């Protein structure tokens, strides 16, 4: 039975988005009116944009101060997403376009768009990937995956030895050492798992379908144990690929944000030196 819970974050997010859109519209109107009056609103819009960008950076601090009662992370995420989209709008209002002409301003604009696009991508990505993880039917913390793989490897080696011991034939031992050992060494088929393709599944199916015709009845329990370990490894690999990508996009987003904020501060200094 599917249980639907009332998501209180979504109305909060919509409300914020509405406020953000209204503020952007107001500032765009104000900026245009100033432009018509042969005046300049870029100082105002610039400060608003910088404030928004600094506010976005505070989301990272919220995660670091998770022990403090600062509200649910979901609300913070909603706030982060809305302010991020608000910053995109303010950037266009502030610059009057999407690109710049000077070298350092082009670098800054490039960093802004890279940050914004990585943020939008990540937002959508982290909404889609957890469903994939759920469909795997197996849960594991990312940090435990190496230990899990190591445990599976031990399990697989024991199964192979068990098969050899039970039959006296080296078939299962050779199958493990020549075919499966490398598979258990580390996560495999990363791209296939990321894309949700079945390359890894097919590879394992093919290998075990092949070896199954070569083993005797004494080896079958061990082979079944080995196959179970391999299939668990597929699930763990999928977790590893997806969870790692979820962490890596955040890393890219944060690094880009840090670079952009640095140039934004530089831009602020230059504006107050030259443009006043």
């Amino acid at each position, binding site marked *: 039975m599917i249980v639907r819970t009332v998501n209180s974050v979504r109305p909060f997010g919509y409300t914020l988005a509405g406020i953000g859109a209204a503020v952007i519209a107001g500032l765009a109107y104000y900026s245009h009116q100033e432009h018509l009056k*042969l005046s300049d609103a870029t100082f105002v819009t610039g400060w608003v944009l910088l404030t928004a960008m600094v506010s976005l950076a505070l989301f990272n601090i919220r995660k670091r101060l998770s022990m403090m009662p600062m509200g649910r992370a979901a609300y913070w995420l909603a706030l982060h997403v809305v302010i991020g989209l608000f910053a995109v709008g303010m950037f266009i209002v502030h610059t009057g376009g999407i690109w710049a002409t*000077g070298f*350092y301003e082009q670098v800054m604009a490039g960093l802004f768009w890279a940050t914004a696009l990585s943020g939008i991508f990540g937002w959508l990505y982290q909404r889609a990937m957890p469903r994939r993880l759920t469909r795997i039917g197996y849960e594991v913390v*990312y940090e435990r995956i*190496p*230990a899990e793989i190591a445990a599976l490897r031990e399990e697989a080696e024991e199964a192979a030895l068990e098969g050899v011991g039970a039959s006296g034939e080296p078939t299962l031992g050779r199958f493990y050492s020549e075919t499966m050992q490398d598979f258990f060494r580390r996560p495999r088929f990363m791209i296939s798992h990321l894309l949700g393709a079945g390359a890894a599944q097919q590879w394992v199916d093919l290998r075990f379908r092949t070896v199954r015709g070569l083993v005797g009845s004494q080896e079958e329990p061990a082979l079944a144990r080995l196959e179970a370990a391999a299939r668990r490894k597929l699930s763990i690999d999928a977790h590893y690929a997806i969870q790692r990508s979820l962490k890596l996009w955040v890393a890219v987003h944060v690094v880009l*944000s840090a670079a952009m904020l640095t140039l934004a501060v530089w831009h602020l200094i230059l504006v107050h030196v*030259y443009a*006043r």
Partner: protein
Amino acid sequence: MTEDKNRFAHDRSPYERPNFPFRCGREAAFGKPCPRGPSAGGDCQGVADCTPFRTRKIVTNAETGEETEIQRWECRRPQYAGGPCAEGPRPDGTCSCIHPPCAPKPTIRRQRGRWALLAVGAMVAMALAFVGAAGGIIGPKPDADGILSHVGWPSSVNPGQLSGKHEQFTAKDGCISCHVGHSDTLTGWAGAIFERTTISDSCVSCHSFGEKQADADPKAQSPMAFAAHNTKFPNRADAPTATCTGCHTEHKGVDASITPMEDGQCSACHTTKFDSFSKSHPKFGANFPHESARTIKFPHGKHLETHFVDQRYIDKAPKNGCVSCHTDQVDGRLLPGSFENGCAACHELAIKEQGMVVFGLPELSDPELTAEARDSCGFPVPQLEPVRATLEALAEALPTMQALGENAESGNLNGVMSGVAALSEAQAAIAEAQEELAEAVDMSEAVSLDSLSPIAAFLLAVPADDADEYSEAAAAFLIAAAAEGQVPLAEAIDAKGGDANVLLSGLSPELVTEVTCAWAANTEYEPKQDPEPGAGWTAQELQVSYLPTGHADAVTKGWIALGLANRGSEDEGAEAFAKLVLSAGDGPGRCFKCHVAPAADAEKQAVQWVIPRVDARPFTAFNHDPHLNVLDQVAGCATCHRQLEPGETLADGQSRPGPHANDFKPIDQATCKDCHRPGGVRQDCSLCHRYHSNPSIRKGTM
């Protein structure tokens, strides 16, 4: 392997957190991690499985009651790592389960922090490095050869290249050419953060907009520079102001236009709002675009329909329509070309014939004055000598006649004989004296004019037609002219505020002397040959005249300027002089058959001889070029410029065919809207209107 839901229980697995900065090196290689993991500083703690704990226990001997302290090392290996080991700690308290150390690896979180710091450092380094690459905080400056070697280099200071017209502007002082707030020192640069300046102040150090003091004092700033439309509305105290940077945004690239203006920006101030030109633009002026005063009067209709079809002049008529004469393109306007190319074929000869008499030789009221003039030329003065000789002869003869009578009465024949002889001599003297007297009487019929010329009367400040009034001054003038040529004339001109060097340019002093002395000799001056049109200074009979050498003759323009300068003066002769040089006729005033004379009450009494190249409507611009291809094939220019039909009246009541009246209908706005409409050609305000009035560059800028 069956999934064990409790495999991560606290006693079965180590406690993992995503915010750990390091992870076990073996784990990073997907091996079995050690149970202890790395320290927060990244050191391996997995060499030993545990840190044994020493316990102390007091054991009491039941027999003796002696207490003994027993110390033992206990294994503290956690349950998830297998619990206490069988070997237990060594005697020295070290763990007996020793492994080789690993090299802990930073977690993604840790790596993320490092990359973020690196990115911050890279941006700071880039900012500082490209400050230097672009010439430092003051921007590009010229090298020893005067070349701006850093222009266009990547810069972390310059937000974009300057537009083409300003590209080399910073050659001397760099960024502080405009950004005066900071100096070329780092402290001055940093201090500018807290100093508020206006860049527009720098703009008007080069640009001026008709302010009178702009050229006089390059550093002077006029509030009109920032007033709406600058000096167009100098008396509007409530005129809104604006900064230059409000419209002209620089640093947008070499090819960027920094002069665009939106319709909305006009509407922000203008009280008459309208959506677009095609929908609701205010009507053009009643005679647009001919409402402003013209400098040349040219009756197009009369020329086109009368002169150019006259068989006598048809060979001189323009062959290519309007552009035969309207050859000069200035700011998109098609102005008439030069006189030589358009008008000279028909009008040049008439100009060369429009001579003016500068001075004539008048009759003087007192013969003594004439005699003085004659004397000044070295001629004898015959008028009184014959009379005196005759009277002397008669006086001498009278005693002889009395003695003759007495001798006749007394019968003294000798006396009678000598008396008769004396009478004969006296008769001869009287006869001779009579001849001289007769000659003197002939001289009294003077060869001279009845009056002074208007120019001479004005210069001498005497009435032209009253000999009693002008004789003394004229005699003095003529006596001086006979002796010194044009000098007295030049002095008189200077006294009236004229420039004799211009007004008498080319006048020979010998000519003045010869004419004056011919008159003194009571003869008419006879030139060696009759003067040709355009001969310049000439003399004939009793007049010294000037025939213009051609169109735009400097001497003629000089006399007209003198006439204008004395227009309205109450000086004697000024009115007649002004009438001579300003009224259309045969003299200099003939110029005003085509040129427009200033109104009598005009503040500036000067003739605008050439068609001004600066548009009299500084806020309206029209470029003919793009319109030429859309003209009606038959009507041509008349598609827009339509002549008035005979008898047709303009909106202001002016009708054709007034000789100097404008004979074109106003431009019909509907004609413009045929193309300038939504979906057609652009129709924004700045297409036809300019914001600034009289924009120019101050002297000394370039």
